[in-house]
């Protein structure tokens, strides 16, 4: 077995190993494990299907930026820099429009938006993966903010 991966949420917040917050999180081991696990399968899947690794990193970066979370945005921008930018074409434009809609105004979604994604080549699996990435980063931003507030409380 490889060594356990570093915990992204704790590194983003700047939590020291064995700090009070780290011990608190350890009371919920399944949350820690599957938060990191969700990140790993969405951002770095063994088989990315029709949604490329650069596209996945860019989608996550956009969600973090639109949610105004600087530390997560820089994590995903760094991942994108390693992978290189996806080609700026109609496909990418359609994907990023949908990313902004799901991030900022999910109630405005419409079946026509799914058809637009299909028209630029995304399969059902790719569309679910895209949506899961946006939904996951939206979760991750709020989990990171709440945990960071708890560490501030402890420092005070």
């Amino acid at each position, binding site marked *: 077995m490889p060594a356990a991966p570093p915990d992204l949420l704790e590194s983003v917040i700047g939590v020291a190993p064995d700090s009070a917050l780290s011990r608190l999180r350890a009371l919920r081991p399944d949350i820690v494990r599957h938060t990191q696990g969700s990140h790993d399968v969405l951002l770095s899947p063994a088989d990315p299907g029709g949604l490329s690794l650069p596209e996945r990193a860019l989608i996550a970066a956009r969600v973090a930026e639109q949610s105004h979370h600087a530390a997560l945005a820089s994590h995903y921008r760094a991942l994108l820099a390693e992978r290189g930018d996806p080609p700026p074409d109609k496909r990418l434009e359609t994907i990023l429009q949908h990313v902004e809609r799901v991030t900022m105004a999910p109630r405005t979604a419409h079946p026509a938006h799914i058809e637009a994604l299909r028209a630029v080549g995304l399969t059902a699996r790719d569309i*679910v993966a895209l949506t899961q990435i946006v939904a996951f980063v939206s979760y991750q931003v709020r989990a990171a903010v709440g945990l960071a507030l708890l560490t501030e409380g402890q420092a005070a």
Partner: protein
Amino acid sequence: MKATRFTLEAVDWEPWLAPVTVESATPAQRAALEASPQANSAYFRTLANDVDSLSERSPLFHAVMYVPRGLKRAERELATVVTSIINGCIYCSSVHARRFVELTKQPEIIRALYETGLDTPLEPRLRAIVDYAARLTREPATMTAADLAPLRAVGMDDLEIHDLTNAVAMFANANRLMQTLGEPIPPDDSTPSAA
């Protein structure tokens, strides 16, 4: 026709993508569905199109909502209803409002939130939960440690605040999946609602 009103009745959900069917499911999809709250629902079968993410999300969801100790289950449910109301997720709100009522026998709290709004008068502990859930849903980036003061004032400890945070965060996730991969369908008008 799409459901457009928040309700305490059961709401159905119709996908905009073909869900995986029981017959077509791979062994991995079948396993991921069996670990989900309702293996046969169209929603989880839609998510099963990307099996690896469903395989991580279902145990995450379960841990956030149902792990014992810490924040009471009813209070987690209430927080998810607040998030769902703000995001406009009629389906999520219906499911979790009904869970809250099953646990508390207090439908009047949900009706007040639906009809009067999130600023309806509530006892102090519920008020603190509703306000924190609303802030974390709407504008997480502007929050400070001062946002925890009302939770501390009603006696919440760090584990309860941790659990509350995760419940709200999980529904930032659930509402986005539910509202952008399909739509809520009202209960059939011709059928009397089940008791």
